[in-house]
């Protein structure tokens, strides 16, 4: 029984030794707080929004919404004023708990903008009227805070904390409509599947910690290069860890919660889940993958790329997952009649496309020059606007017709041309046709995958795009060719402006993508390890 005979090292650590090792334990935390300002603003904002609602005399469900927007604006302002840290400025805060680099700032900007678009949707949602909404906005901002942590974590503890913080608030928001049976069901399903996935992930993290003796992602990756652990154990560990990420981005095989949760949740939060939550999931996945691809300290072979460590061809594994994810999403979407459910499967398919971008980049991580995250990040930007736009219009239509089923869209072209044209453009973009951002985004993803030798994956992705035309075009046909009942209506100016504001970025990204591409290319990645 050789394996039972590990004798515990005597001694251990005393707290004095810890303090000797970090003489600047306290003073550095003070200086790091400056770079942590957006998070601090959100922390205070959460408490503020809840208390504004709690202590206000009048019950006004919109009022905390304005305060939430203010908090988001302030957070956005601190992010913008902080700027994108250059490659020299990039580093970590709080003794290696949090990363400060261009990628983190970019993802935080994206997440904040996405949340800020969802807030007006919440304010105008009819089921969420007439109740105290301070808690809703507090939880929404809390979820965003967790996602900030996901975007900038470099310690396994922060990974875990970020994912869990974002998840718990999401569970509660899904079941927020207390009287609604679908919401109750969606909430329970989400909390059970989600917690099991994260429970499995944390077991994987614990083995990772045991193998490497560190929680710092960089140190973990470095230790894995020289580890003598058996490959089968490493594969098990990798699979356990991947469970957490896969569930967050709703990738195969942990995608099955998405349709029920999306259908049950209130529409604005469905939009939030499908876009913001997914973007955060990809942020943490990218962060993880980048750390494991960093070159070894003594110039050893790359961890992931060489396939030496885990003895597996990781790009191919990710490619297969991407194929399954997009195919399952698209095929299941064909039969859907509920708009939210349709977009749920569509968002699973889009997770597949994005995963294709990740798979394409993996072989290049750690090599000289730009690893090429740009297609994935660009597509996340496009996806943010097109999906939120589609949900926004669907919410207006659902409020008018009283149903979230597809027949509610019949004849929309006659009743409300602005909405119909807007939704048409978003659908075109979701399919991936010019002149929209969906086209340029998907083109870049396909190109990256093709150039990195994932030819089969590219073929599958193109086939999937063709399949997806069917169900997106079905909505377009309903809107313009079918007769619907109901009278035409004039949109309020606010709604019309909002639709235009969402359409403009889609067209802009489709026609003039260079500036955005350039910005994303210039983002710095902190070297972890």
């Amino acid at each position, binding site marked *: 029984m050789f394996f039972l005979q590990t004798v515990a090292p005597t001694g251990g650590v005393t707290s004095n030794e810890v303090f000797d090792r970090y003489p600047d334990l306290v003073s550095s935390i003070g200086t790091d707080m400056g770079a942590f300002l957006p998070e601090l603003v959100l922390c205070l904002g959460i408490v503020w929004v809840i208390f504004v609602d709690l*202590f206000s005399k009048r019950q006004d469900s919109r009022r905390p919404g304005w305060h939430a927007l203010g908090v988001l604006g302030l957070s956005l302002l601190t992010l913008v004023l902080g700027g994108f840290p250059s490659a020299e400025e990039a580093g970590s805060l709080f003794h290696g708990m949090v990363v400060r680099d261009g990628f983190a700032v970019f993802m935080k900007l994206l997440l904040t903008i996405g949340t800020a678009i969802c807030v007006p949707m919440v304010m105008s949602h009819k089921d969420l009227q007439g109740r105290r909404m301070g808690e809703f906005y507090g939880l929404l901002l809390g979820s965003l805070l967790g996602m900030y942590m996901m975007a900038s974590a470099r310690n396994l503890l922060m990974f875990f904390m970020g994912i869990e913080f974002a998840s718990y608030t999401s569970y509660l928001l899904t079941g927020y409509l207390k009287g609604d049976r679908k919401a109750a069901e969606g909430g329970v399903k989400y909390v059970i599947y989600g917690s099991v996935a994260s429970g499995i992930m944390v077991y994987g993290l614990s083995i990772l910690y045991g193998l490497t003796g560190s929680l710092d992602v960089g140190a973990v990756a470095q230790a894995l290069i020289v580890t*003598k652990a058996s490959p089968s154990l490493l594969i098990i560990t990798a699979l356990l860890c991947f469970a957490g990420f896969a569930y967050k981005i709703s990738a195969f095989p942990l995608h099955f919660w998405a349709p029920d949760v999306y259908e049950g949740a209130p529409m604005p939060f469905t939009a939030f889940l499908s876009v913001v939550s997914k973007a955060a999931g990809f942020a943490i996945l990218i962060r993880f993958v980048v750390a494991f691809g960093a070159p070894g300290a003594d110039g050893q072979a790359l961890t992931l790329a060489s396939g030496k460590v885990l003895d597996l061809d990781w790009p191919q594994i990710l490619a297969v997952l991407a194929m399954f994810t997009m195919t399952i999403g698209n095929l299941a979407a064909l039969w859907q009649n509920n708009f939210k459910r349709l977009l749920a499967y569509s968002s699973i398919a889009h997770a597949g496309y994005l995963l294709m971008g990740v798979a394409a980049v993996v072989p290049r991580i750690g090599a000289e020059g730009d690893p090429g995250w740009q297609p994935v990040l660009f597509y996340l930007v496009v996806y943010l606007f097109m999906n939120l736009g589609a949900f926004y219009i669907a919410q207006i239509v659902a409020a008018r017709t009283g149903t979230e089923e597809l027949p509610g869209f019949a004849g929309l072209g006659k009743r409300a041309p602005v909405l119909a044209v807007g939704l048409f453009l978003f659908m075109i973009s979701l399919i991936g046709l010019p002149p929209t951002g969906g086209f340029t985004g998907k083109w870049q993803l396909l190109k990256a995958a093709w150039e990195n030798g994932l030819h089969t994956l590219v073929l599958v992705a193109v086939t999937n795009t063709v399949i997806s035309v069917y169900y997106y075009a079905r909505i377009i046909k309903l809107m313009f060719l079918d007769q619907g009942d109901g009278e035409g209506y004039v949109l309020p100016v606010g709604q019309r402006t909002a639709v235009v504001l969402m359409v403009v970025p889609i067209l802009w990204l489709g026609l003039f993508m260079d500036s955005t591409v350039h910005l994303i290319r210039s983002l710095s990645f902190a070297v972890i390890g």
Partner: protein
Amino acid sequence: MLFQYAHALIGFLFGMVFVALQVWVLVRLLSPKVKEPMKDSTYECGEPPVGDAWVRFDMRFYTMALIFLIFEVEAVFLFPWAAVYNKLMAITAGKPGAWFPFIEVFLFVVILAIGLIYVWRKGDMDWVKTTMHGRFDDKHVYHVADDGNPDKKSVA
């Protein structure tokens, strides 16, 4: 050293096999197959169960338990902090941020206190919050009153 990390794998696999053996194999092999109604009773020992095992707890206990959670969480984090507090203060004395160890935990407690204030203000701390005003009549039957309708439901 080759098997340095075999522990983790063997532990994991042993756990898997052990449980699978228990749940699916050993039970089948060892347990006697007897089909009779008494096998389905709760304790299988001749003692008939009294009442339902699903005792309904009052919702108010649940709320109280959740509020208790605030303080439980507080204690778990305060304990390690208290263990090193003196050393921390000695090290930071005279440097910028000398009071940091104190302020840090003070903020932590304040945030938890905010949660408590929220609960308090929402009225979840009030023990009597329901609209039910029951009473026992002279036959020891409890009448639950809903909206001023005293005999709507009665529970023996």
